[in-house]
């Protein structure tokens, strides 16, 4: 490990990329020949219609599924060759609709994030304690530290899971639709936390089904359709009416958010409804 244990955020700049990555489920080829590179220290959102392969891509990046062809490269090395535990010190994953065993408290959940750093004779170090405290604070959960996960609101629960990945102290964080089951207020809680993490040096990749939040919170957008990349770049430059039509078969009017400069989708309607 190159990073020093004394700093609270020992994050080196990682590089995660794919090299003509192909992945399939059974006989069905979901993505093929994909070459992407994720910008360090930024929030990347992967968007696209249902079934476009965005979750499959994330599963490949997180090594949940083995690529059929090509490779995922972490700092230049094929992640298939990394020991699972070592990968877990580099890359944290929040799967869709994560479920905690019943009765587990917020702190107990966050402590699991320390697992890849621990061992039989290193079960609870000063470092572990400090990092867990830090994760609680970063996610704004100090008041809820001893609350069972099942007693939290959706947004709080999702923040607790993200806090677990914070405690994992990985330079990379992958999130699969972190806001899919949340109402607007809770979505904002989660997005602001994710942005905060990126501002403090983490590289964040999230799969989102909502293009509007991707425009608002992502620095880098990867738009996918039928297993292919349709557009890639900052939302302000890549999101166009054409792109929205290609992705979702809808028409819209694009505005610019006067406060953030990010694209806003207005008057979204079905293509066929256009006269």
């Amino acid at each position, binding site marked *: 490990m190159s990073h020093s244990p004394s700093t609270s955020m020992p994050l080196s700049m990682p590089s995660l990329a794919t090299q003509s990555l192909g992945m399939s489920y059974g006989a069905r080829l979901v993505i093929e020949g994909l070459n992407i590179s994720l910008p360090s220290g930024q929030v990347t959102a992967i968007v696209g219609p249902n079934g476009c392969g965005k979750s499959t891509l994330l599963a490949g990046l997180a*090594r949940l599924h083995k690529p059929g062809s090509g490779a995922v490269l972490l700092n230049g090395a094929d992640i298939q060759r990394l020991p699972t535990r070592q990968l877990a010190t580099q890359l944290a994953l929040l*799967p869709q609709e994560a479920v905690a*065993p019943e009765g587990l408290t917020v702190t107990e959940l966050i*402590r*699991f994030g320390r697992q890849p750093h621990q061992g039989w004779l*290193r*079960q609870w170090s000063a470092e572990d304690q400090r990092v867990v405290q830090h994760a609680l604070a970063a996610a704004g959960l100090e008041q809820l530290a001893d609350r069972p996960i099942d007693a939290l609101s959706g947004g709080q629960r999702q923040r607790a899971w993200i806090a677990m990945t914070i405690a994992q102290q990985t330079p990379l964080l992958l999130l699969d639709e972190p806001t899919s089951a949340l109402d607007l207020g809770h979505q904002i809680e989660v997005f602001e936390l994710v942005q905060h993490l990126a501002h403090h040096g983490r590289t964040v990749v999230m799969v989102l089904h909502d293009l509007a939040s991707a425009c608002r919170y992502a620095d880098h957008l990867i738009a996918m359709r039928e297993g292919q990349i349709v557009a890639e770049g900052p939302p302000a430059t890549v999101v166009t009416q054409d792109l929205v039509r290609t992705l979702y078969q809808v028409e819209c009017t694009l505005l610019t958010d006067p406060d953030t400069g990010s694209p806003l989708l207005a008057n979204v309607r079905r293509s066929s409804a256009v006269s």
Partner: protein
Amino acid sequence: MKTTSIKSTSMPFTHATRAALGGNDPVSPPQGYWRFAWRHQQGANSVLFEQRAVVVNLGLFGALLVASVIYLSLGSVKVAPTTVLKALVGNADMMATFVVQELRLPRLAAACFTGAAFALAGILMQTLARNRLATPGIIGIDNGATAFAVASIVGIGVSIAPPAMALAGATTAAVLTFGLAAGSGTQGYRFIVAGIGVGAVFGAVTQLLLARVAIDTANAAYPWTVGSLNARPSGALQLLMLGLALGLTTALALARSLTLLRFKDATASGLGVNVKRRRLEVLLLSVALTGLAVAVVGPVGMVGLIGPEIARSLSSSRGVPLLAATLAGALVMVLADLAGRTLLTPIEIPVGIVTAVVGGPWLLWILMRPQRSYT
């Protein structure tokens, strides 16, 4: 007295007290744990013990000791508990020493170790399948082991020792169940139903084997096919003890990642667990323990359900109570065999029937209780 765990050189193990209790150690253990830390040249080591788990395990161990003394003292010849203790160290009269050491002690050992093995195999399989009904007994592994072992006893031309045959049978049943449920994974009812089917087929095979042989041979094999500590094949117990020692050590070594298997695969994998390999290891361990235990006592798989259930009800939800389940399994088997030996004297009820009578209602209760997400 200073409680800085690190500096003290006179004691290699120092209890790191909580900061709240006035210690000046900067590290306080997570709530509900005791932490022991010591420093060496390369850095600091620390281990945690969950307070509740320590209390539960000590309690179960104490209960097992008490039950064991009662087990050794009761029977057709009664030996007073104090005499039991003397007989164990060879200080009692010859009669008591003979009854305790030669007659009852080997059987007590068989009860303890088979119960422990069944319960450990049970909680491992439950954790693997994330389903509290998925014990080796229910998914057909006990019956597979029994059918193969009976085949070698009643002789169909195969003359391999029962433990080897039981292991082969357990493996065969496991392969069948997992094969039949392939695609649907180990979670959900399809896996359980496949296992129940496999178990039923092997149960029928056992009956068929018994029906084909002379009535005397069948009679001799019968108690064992329902689970009895009366007819223990020689050598099987020694093999079980060895297997249990290795199995329990391995299981405890895997305990930390077993805790993570309670999460979804993606979560466990993200936290650094090689999920596929761990599941295979857990499966092999569970099948081997079941096979070795069946070789000694026959299919008493109910203990694989009751032991873990007792352990879970006593433990916190923080981890997988492997040791508590193992101890509870041993305790249940000892008490069940004690009841079987003494309730209807001079008739002896096979231990498999006692556990079935107790375990049946227990199973119903589990099924009818509002479902807690397992583990």
